[in-house]
């Protein structure tokens, strides 16, 4: 448990640094759902910028696969139907709510946004309730 906590703080620090680089370099919020979603609008904006960040995410994923493959693990006890439903809900929900764990949870809370606080409490609450319910009934 202690090791898990230390790694979580260390990883979180890297995420916070990455978000700070995006803010300092581009003046933008490092919200992943917003960066990706902006490519899927009728008139995508800042395509090169968005693609560079997403390319970096994939490259980072590649590093993880090479150096610490155990860090990437598929969910157990979740059917493909559940995975598809999860993806649709996350995609639609983050666009409707204008942010996800990174945009609202990290960037929003760091700049003390009340909207982001409400969003974060809402998706955390829904997440706890849903995972607990699935855990109890399966």
């Amino acid at each position, binding site marked *: 448990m202690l090791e898990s906590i230390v790694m979580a703080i260390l*990883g979180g*620090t890297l995420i916070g*640094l990455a*978000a700070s680089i995006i*803010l300092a370099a581009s003046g933008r919020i490092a919200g992943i759902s917003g960066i990706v979603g902006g490519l899927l609008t009728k008139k995508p904006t800042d395509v090169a910028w968005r693609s560079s960040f997403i390319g970096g995410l994939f490259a980072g994923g590649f590093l993880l696969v090479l150096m610490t493959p155990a860090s990437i693990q598929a969910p157990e006890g979740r059917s493909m139907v559940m995975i598809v439903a*999860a*993806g649709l*809900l996350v995609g639609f929900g983050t666009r409707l709510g204008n942010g996800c764990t990174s945009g609202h949870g990290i960037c929003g809370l760091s700049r003390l946004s009340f909207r982001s606080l409400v969003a974060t409490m809402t998706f955390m609450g829904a997440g*706890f309730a849903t995972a607990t319910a699935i855990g109890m009934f399966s």
Partner: protein
Amino acid sequence: MKHLLTVFSAGVLFAVGLGVSGMTNANKVIGFLNLAGDWDPSLAFVMVGAIGVHLLLFKFILRRESPIFGSHFQIPTDGKLDKRLVIGSLMFGVGWATGGFCPGPGMVSSVGLGSEALVFSVSMLGGMVLFQWLGGSPEPTATTAPVQ
């Protein structure tokens, strides 16, 4: 070019941070969100680390007149609460706990070519496209001029 390389590097750092922290381990995410059973609270500390760093640097960075590679900062205005914020966040939370992935970890994990992460990521893009089809529009931010 320097700008895009910097953004690319930040993406790499972000993904490595997600991996190191445990966020790309969907079982760990589910174990964190499932309060019954063997609860693993360690992922709460990802937020502690990330917000700790970003909160400190945020104020420092905003002392600049403009970002290094852009003409101005594009920070969302903290507008009023509305239904779409709450309903969208509810949907996101339910989906996050159902699949064990939020957007970043889902996409980063899909590099490992596991079928769950790939199916999740494609479905997530589908959900975003569906939002557009149904006429959804992103809320405007304070300033919207493109960065250089």
